């Protein structure tokens, strides 16, 4: 019954429905897809090299001897996992800082705001680059290490969004009432504000995940990350490394590009949909 109501809502909010649909497709591709592949073929020197798509290798193979179908299934999953882990950590830190600094204010808030503003001006990608290149061997970062590095910048935007929402919510009547009823700050944050800010938390999460994915792609395209793993960014790195253009290996270029486009489309549509959910005023119809 609840599910039916939810599906009904998605019909009225096509952006959210579409975004969740694309995300679901990607998740199915990386999970159910595993039933159709040999995960070992996602790694180098497991299959013949440079084969265009065929019945045997529906996505073709690359110059390192990876089956690209297996590579895409494993790699898309890996990139999504990296992004979601970093995004979740970023949202966690962002929510903690955003709620406390927005609600309690004072010197702490001033400091948080200042740091966030400064970090927003500094391109997060360059920051990531500096951090990653300082590590002992940037070309052997395990996926989870990559996620942790990405989470170093992933909290900035969520903190900003959540803080400003908390600031505006603090003045609302129901929060005032809770305060007058003697609820403690933490109780107000958890019981009164959190439920009302759920859509904003979800928007922040979608933004943080797609930001983290973008960061991982950028770093990996430069060869920073585990070169053994078939993540989407690494695929871009190898495409350039082996000059797939000159050799006309269009499939090798096209596949990660399509997957990347789908990932970003999913998260953008989801945040547009959530935004509509949070501010129904933006609806087009009267």
């Amino acid at each position, binding site marked *: 019954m609840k599910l039916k109501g939810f599906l009904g809502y998605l019909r009225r909010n096509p952006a959210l429905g579409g975004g969740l649909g694309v995300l679901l497709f990607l998740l199915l591709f990386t999970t159910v897809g595993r039933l159709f592949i040999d995960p070992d073929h996602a790694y180098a020197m497991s299959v013949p090299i440079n084969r265009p798509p065929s019945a045997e290798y529906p996505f073709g193979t690359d110059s390192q001897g990876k089956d690209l179908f297996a590579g895409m299934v494993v790699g898309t999953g890996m990139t999504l996992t990296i992004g979601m882990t970093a995004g979740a950590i970023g949202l966690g830190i962002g929510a903690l800082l955003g709620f406390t600094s927005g609600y309690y204010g004072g010197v702490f808030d001033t400091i948080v705001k200042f740091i966030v503003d400064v970090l927003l*001006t500094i391109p997060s990608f360059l920051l990531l680059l500096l951090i990653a290149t*300082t590590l002992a061997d940037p070309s052997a970062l395990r996926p989870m290490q990559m996620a942790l590095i990405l989470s170093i910048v992933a909290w900035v935007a969520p903190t900003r969004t959540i803080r400003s929402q908390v600031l505006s919510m603090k003045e609302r009547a129901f929060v005032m009432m809770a305060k007058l009823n003697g609820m403690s700050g933490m109780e107000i944050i958890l019981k009164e504000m959190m439920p009302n800010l759920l859509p904003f938390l979800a928007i922040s999460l979608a933004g943080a995940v797609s930001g983290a994915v973008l960061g991982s*792609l950028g770093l990996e395209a*430069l060869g920073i990350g585990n070169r053994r793993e078939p993540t989407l960014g690494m695929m871009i790195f190898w495409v350039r490394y082996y000059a*797939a253009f000159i050799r006309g290996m269009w499939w090798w270029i096209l596949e990660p590009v399509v997957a990347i486009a789908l990932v970003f489309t999913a998260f953008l549509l989801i945040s547009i949909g959530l935004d509509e959910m949070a501010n129904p005023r933006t609806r087009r119809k009267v």
Partner: protein
Amino acid sequence: MTRLIPLRYFLHRTLYLVAVLWVAATLNFVLPRLAGRDPILERLTELEASIGGHRGLWVAEAIDSYREWAGLNQPLWGQYVQYLQNMLNMDFGYSFSRNRPVWDVVSYALPWTMGLLGTTTFISFALGTFAGGLSAWRRQDRLLNVSVSLLMALAVIPPFIIGLVLADTLAFRLKLFPIAGMFTPGRFVDLGDIEWWLDVLHHAAVPALALLLGTAGSWAMGMRGMMVTVLGSDFIAFAEAKGVKRLRLILSYAIRNVMLPQTTLLAMSLGSLVSSVTLVEIMFGYPGVGSILESAIRAFDYNLIQGCVFFLILSIGLATFVLDLSYPLLDPRISYRKQT
């Protein structure tokens, strides 16, 4: 001037600029030390061990000069002060992979990056803003809606990925454009020569197109959303009730009010734009700071990496500063409103 840009606001913004630069510089100092290593010294020592003879002597010399430059024989805070002094003197050390001071390498590449970034951002911002505003105004126009939606869909894909596809199709397959460089090799820089400029444009065209296609849609999206909001506001309705002409309604009432949030959006996006231009350059082998950065990473030339990053942040900091100063000119409320 002070009437247009209130002094307090000016000082506030200047403080931010200084803070941004200080953070960027300090990160360069702190990060390697947090990681417990000195990548530059490591690399130089490695070189010294691998090559002997005459060139080995040169490396030993390089190590000495590096120690002196970084103040390695001083305590940590002394190193920090020395480091900040070096920065203020525009002395970023020596790039051993290029055998030149970092400043020389970066200062040669920076204008190309900024040129590419500046022109494409200007065109993309203008185009996207215009298209988005128009599509909010004429929501019934099919063709307009389709093309704006297409731009928005493209904006979802990171520009360097678009660049990858464009490089493959336009440069490699159709051979319409060169694949690397900023002008034909062997040509000399001649600012007075129109052909030289055309050559430069020819080389920059595909990277610029990638950036344009990858960003114009987001301006259009932001503009359309804000324009729809502004067009629904009370003051537009009242202006219409006053019987002002349509052109005035669009320009002085709607556009004027949308420009502030739109400029804020621009300022907020500068960081990701720099990331994009860096990666697009690398995809095309366009020899700006991005490409230098890539080769520095390949060579583990840490000094050069730091220098590139610092200068990119410096440029962003300055651009943000200029945009921030333009807000009070766009919106008289800015100096009164509490900064949130």
